[in-house]
């Protein structure tokens, strides 16, 4: 993570996937463009309405810690720009699975990934039913194929004749 005067650790915990990061980036852009257009009192409401509640709260907490007030939009803008930079430079782990995981599932995977590879890690999910089960993971150029399809292929390659004879016997 780049050296910044701000701490985004708490905030990054809530950003799990690449889709979420992209959506957050778009919303930050909206907030930045609102900085000079709105009354200061409305700015906190805008942030609350645009960002998910946990993220908004984390942001307010950080703003308070850094003594950043709405009276100084430049400081606020610098903070948001830094956050954008951090989000854009997050590492991505590409995960290919055979089904769409639940929200809890995504959180669990994200937590594990952040624990293994660092807080600035995002999950890029791909759904590919043909892999049957398991997962294909690409992290930092390393390719790990733990899919059921590959395992079955290997079994078939090594024991092809045996399997074929069983299938013939059973008339399948």
């Amino acid at each position: 993570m780049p050296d910044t005067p701000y701490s985004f650790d708490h905030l990054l915990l809530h950003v799990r996937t690449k889709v979420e990061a992209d959506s957050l980036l778009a919303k930050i852009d909206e907030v930045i463009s609102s900085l000079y257009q709105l009354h200061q009192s409305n700015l906190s409401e805008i942030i609350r309405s645009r960002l998910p509640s946990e993220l908004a709260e984390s942001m307010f907490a950080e703003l308070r810690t850094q003594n950043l007030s709405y009276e100084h939009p430049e400081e606020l803008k610098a903070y948001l720009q830094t956050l954008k930079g951090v989000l854009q430079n997050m590492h991505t782990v590409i995960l290919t699975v055979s089904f769409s995981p639940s929200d809890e599932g995504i959180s669990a995977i994200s937590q594990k990934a952040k624990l293994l590879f660092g807080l600035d890690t995002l999950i890029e999910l791909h759904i590919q039913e043909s892999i049957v089960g398991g997962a294909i993971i690409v992290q930092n150029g390393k390719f790990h194929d733990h899919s059921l399809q590959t395992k079955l292929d290997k079994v078939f390659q090594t024991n092809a004749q045996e399997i074929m004879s069983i299938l013939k016997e059973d008339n399948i």
Partner: protein
Amino acid sequence: MITFNDYLTGMKEVGFVEESVSSLAYATGLPSVKINEIVLFESGEVGYVTGLKPDYVEILVFAKIPIRLGTRCVRTGQILQIPVGQEYLGKVIDPFGNMLDRMKTFQKPAAYLPIDTIPKGIESRKKITLPFETGVSLVDMLVPLGRGQRELVLGDRKTGKTNFLFQTMIHQAKKGMICIYAVIGKKKFDIKQAEEVFEKAGIMKQTIILASIADDPLSTIYITPFSAMALAEHFRNEGKDVLLILDDLTNHAKFYREIGLLGKRFPGRNAYPADIFFTHARLLERAGNFSHENGEASITCLPVVETVQGDIAGYIQTNIMSMTDGHIYFDTEMFSKGRRPAINPFLSVTRVGRQTQNDLRRSMNREVTSFLTLLEKMENFSHFGAEASFSIKDTLATGEQVIAYFNQTSDVVIDPELQIFIFTLLWYGVWKGEYLPDMKGDIGKIIALYRADPKLRDEVKGLIEQATSLNDFMNILRGRVAEIVTRLKLEHANMKMVSLSSPTIAKQSKTDQKVASSK
């Protein structure tokens, strides 16, 4: 056949194309990839790694269309190689060893060699001792070459460089040398023309044309000379002597510049990449004379460089001059004067060839060089309109004959022994006072007779072996000129003038007179 997925599961690394410009692709990922390693794209294209940056890998792709962003790529763990073998003799191939004419069937050789290797060290090299004859009198007598020499051929376009190279190839291929003609980013027409010339001369079975056309991807053009050198190294490893012609390196440098600029490398002089010298030096250093279990095996390399308006001090020109063992310069001025080949002997250099010459050839070389220098001075002097003395007129007349002898059309190749023989007859004054076309007619007859009569060949060789200097050889011929003239049926030979008035003899007799008078 190994597929993309096989490499993916085998190497366990993947990359994603993030940027693609012409033949260059930039990919993230592939953490353990090495420089020069082949990378396979999921779309089927192949490339090889040319640069490693902290965030991405630079890949030179062998595809005409840029790779699409997001395309996955995998390592193969292999470096770029070309199939090598005898099977290629008589074929026209691309830098990957495929037939250029895809309609022709062909069994690829099983052996492979890497196209980019570290040149062999000094311990595996040998001194160049054997001459390399081109069949062109002017070169063999004035700018002699040796087997394993790297001689640059430079000059403006349309000055006869390629014709000279073809003459050399024809002469050497007929003697059994393997000839590789590398065409770098030229027109298809040029390749076809070369093929036709070699077929007509009957040397195609000793020749390989390795060509890339201007329409090919930058990467394919870039690797052409390296592939040709790998092919030459294969024959060298088999103990054979190889002639490699790289036509031309200015074109290669231009294509490499394009790659460099597209790759955002910092431009150096004339916008060429900073490593252009290294690239060409690494290539040319692979040629030379090498020790082999059967004695010696050589790669004689003739790189071609084009000049613009006779500027031999250009960047690429001087670079390659400094990494070769001399250069043959084709002069536009001489070309416009009607000299063929239009080689300027005063601006041409050979750093190795003279050490391969025997005493007789060295003596002739000295004699002719000093005579041509004298002739040039006299010609300049006569331009002032000064009244010419008898000796000046004599020198100018002999000069005309010498130059007429050196004028050699591209379809004529003269054996080195015959070059010595004819030149000695001329020097002796056999055609003194005769019209130049008559003299050329007689020379043509001698060449035809020499080719047809093996007995004459042996006789001439026998006479030459007895001599150690030009004067020595003239003395040997002195008593036999009448016989030679009759035997060769030379219609225009002037037997009366024989042995009296060659410039050297005239000069010598004057010196003798001075010495005698001083005594």
